[in-house]
């Protein structure tokens, strides 16, 4: 994770505001035990070599099938084209949109894929290189937990229980843990932090949500166990997304009338992620881009997994819409032709 001392200090200060910090030792332990479960659910993080194998295997299987991105992309692009007058292009151009981030993303997407015949060979190399090395995702989770435990004033070696000496709890213990979380009314704080920890496990792959089905299952199981109302589940997911994006929209959500989560409870995360309310943060670009062109971008990114060159070209084409004087329709049609 490469933390420097100033950053660590700032993060420690942030965690002093953690809502669990002011509770008793017993509550803290139960909370950490509950949160710690997500670290040990198979497939909830990306650290095991087998995970990457499974993913690669799945992707290889998909290649033989019809590609939904390929079949639907023309319609989506045409849909965007039809509605393009509704967008305030200048505003996006001047204030928010930074398409370069998505070009980086498609390059990263390429790096995750396993095709041996990539133009630059990056994909295969990176996958091979990662196996057997310390996994940055796991390091991130560990750093996060260390900070949490440190800020709670619990002995540092407590963390060993989660990572090195973890013993699977039996059903009775899990019931006890969850029941105590309910008694202490820590449900929503825990749920949000489960999402945050799951995202850290994705190597900063922000905003996509869960890549790992078991982390998703765990989160929704917890929502059921704590009988969280559907609308509140959505609120928690939205807040986690904005925090993960480092978007100032997290403040908007927390301050919204009728929002069921307490602002003070989550201030530590805003501080931890250094999310400023008075300026566009890095993730805001992406949020706005998603709002305008989310589906198109997702499709191109997905498409890029299968056809790196065309995907990259597609993103460059969108970029040209906003940063140079192009005939939009003509250029988009050319773009469509390149990916047919």
């Amino acid at each position, binding site marked *: 994770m490469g933390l420097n001392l100033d950053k660590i200090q700032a993060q420690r200060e942030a965690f002093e505001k953690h809502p669990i910090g002011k509770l008793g030792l017993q509550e803290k332990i139960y909370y950490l035990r509950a949160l710690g*479960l997500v670290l*040990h*659910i*198979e*497939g909830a993080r990306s650290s095991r070599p087998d995970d990457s194998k499974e993913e690669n295997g799945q992707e290889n299987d998909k290649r033989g099938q019809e590609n939904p991105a390929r079949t639907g992309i023309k319609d989506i692009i045409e849909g965007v084209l039809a509605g393009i007058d509704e967008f305030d292009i200048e505003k996006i151009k001047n204030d928010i949109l930074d398409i370069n981030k998505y070009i980086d993303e498609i390059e990263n997407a390429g790096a995750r894929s396993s095709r041996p015949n990539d133009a630059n060979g990056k994909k295969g190399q990176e996958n091979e290189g990662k196996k057997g090395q310390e996994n940055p995702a796991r390091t991130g989770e560990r750093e996060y937990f260390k900070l949490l435990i440190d800020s709670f004033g619990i002995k540092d070696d407590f963390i060993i229980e989660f990572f090195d000496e973890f013993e*699977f*709890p*039996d*059903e009775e213990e*899990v*019931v006890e843990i*969850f*029941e105590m979380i309910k008694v202490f009314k820590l449900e929503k704080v825990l749920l949000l932090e489960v999402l945050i920890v799951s995202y850290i496990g994705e190597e900063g792959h922000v905003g996509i949500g869960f890549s790992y089905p*078991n982390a998703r*299952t*765990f989160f929704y*199981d917890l*929502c*059921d*166990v704590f*009988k*969280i*109302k*559907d*609308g509140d589940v959505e609120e928690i997911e939205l807040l986690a997304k904005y925090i993960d994006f480092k978007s100032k929209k997290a403040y908007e959500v927390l301050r919204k009338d009728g929002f069921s989560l307490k602002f003070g409870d989550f201030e530590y995360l805003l501080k931890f992620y250094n999310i400023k309310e008075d300026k566009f943060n890095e993730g805001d670009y992406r949020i706005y881009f998603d709002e305008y062109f989310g589906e198109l971008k997702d499709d191109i990114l997905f498409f890029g997994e299968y056809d790196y060159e065309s995907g990259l070209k597609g993103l460059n084409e969108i970029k040209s819409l906003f940063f140079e004087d192009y005939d939009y329709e003509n250029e988009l049609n050319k773009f469509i032709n390149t990916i047919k």
Partner: protein
Amino acid sequence: MSKLLKTIKNAKLELLKFKNHPINILLDDDKIEYFNALSILKNIKDSKKALEYFKILLLSADLDKNTDFSKKNEFSEKEFTKIMEIISKNSLALTFLLDFTILALKKDENLKINDKNMLKTFIKFLKINESELENIEKLAKFFIQNDKNQVLEFIDKNYKSADKIFDYLIEYYGD
């Protein structure tokens, strides 16, 4: 499924079971008939959510959660009448209709024609007014959304005089 996730799922069922579901007034054989009647709803096994609720009900009735009722979903008229009599005689009609509706909604999100027809058949045997089905469906939806306030308000408004029939639901949210 990983060992831990399986443990968590089992713990979840344990935590979500109803402490005082009215089915517990039945003898074990009659409890099984209650579940046989619920199993008339086809393909419960195909829906994770419906199957999970079915297991929660089994645990609430203190029956093995792995009991398989899927093979018994066709009944002679005599058998069917007998089950409906057990339900009716023990004042479980509304509870049964609610459980059936919850299962159907967990399976398909909306009641299908077949499910509606089945519910209509039930109420004829249970001698319940057809207008009650609308209420039951609303209550089931609030329950599925985990909307505690709506569930409690709805019970208070519509079933205040129903001899504490849905007290187990009030307890479910109050525990």
